[in-house]
């Protein structure tokens, strides 16, 4: 399965079935303060487990950094 994650295209195993699976694979633990878009649609945290990721999905994972 090919996914684009934060602008980088990569191969992922087919056992990555949901947004939650992907976050866990990427070792993103603090899921409280992140936001996820799948194909430009925002996925609220309570739906990470139900939301499927599929071949050719474009996924953005963002969080807070210092700023003024």
């Amino acid at each position: 399965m090919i996914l684009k994650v934060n602008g980088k295209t990569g191969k992922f195993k087919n056992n990555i079935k949901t947004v939650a699976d992907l976050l866990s694979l990427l070792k993103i633990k603090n899921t409280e303060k992140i936001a996820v878009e799948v194909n430009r649609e925002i996925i609220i945290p309570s739906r990470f487990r139900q939301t499927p990721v599929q071949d050719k999905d474009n996924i953005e994972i963002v969080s807070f950094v210092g700023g003024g």
Partner: protein
Amino acid sequence: MKPLEIADRKFKSRLLVGTGKYSSPDSLAESLAVSGTEIVTVALRRVDLNAPDPTLQAIDFDKYLVVPNTSGARDCDEAVRLSRLARSASGLTWIKLEVTPDPVYLLPDPYETLKAAEILVKDGFTVLPYIHADPVLCKRLEDAGCAAVMPLASPIGSARGIRTEEFLKIIIEQSNLPVVVDAGLGMPSHAAAAIELGADAVLVNTAIAAADNSVEMAVAFKLAVEAAEKALDSGPVKESVKAEASSPLTGFLDA
């Protein structure tokens, strides 16, 4: 002075502090603590999967009202997209709206900012737009339902102080919204001057973050803002062109 009130919230401190550019998370955490601030800003970026930003751990989301900005947005669509992502990440509807297509001076685009403000207000956001010191634009943003206006003193991070004074005065005179002077305040005296002009609050980032000693500089800004508040509460003397002698002009010795 009455407490600072933005949207439905009251704040004791008139100093808002940005969280970018600190030398370490510890320096950031301590600077925020000593500044007395109650409102801090953050930005939103792609998670760096190799090196997560440690800033986040230094900010106590329970202690401070954390207001995400839309920095990096070059037009209305990008700003709205970032705002919605920020809301999803923070669970909060406050947003500092920034649309800065110009990479050299980072000056805000008034048209795209107004368009984004209208959309975001309808979408339930508490919108604090970063703008040029433009009194007419401030009224348009007020009509759009923004919660405050954030006119610039000088370009972001420039430390040049208040270069928009005449227009800030008009904004302060006319605005029914809180006026937060943002960007370019380089020294505590600049922050004090903004409050003395009648601004409701100031936002400072680079001047504190990039100082050799951020913690001490945060204290300096806190004191400056409080000094200006105290001065305004103390009935300042009006300016005059002619001298006003401090001692009686009678009772001299004979020649």
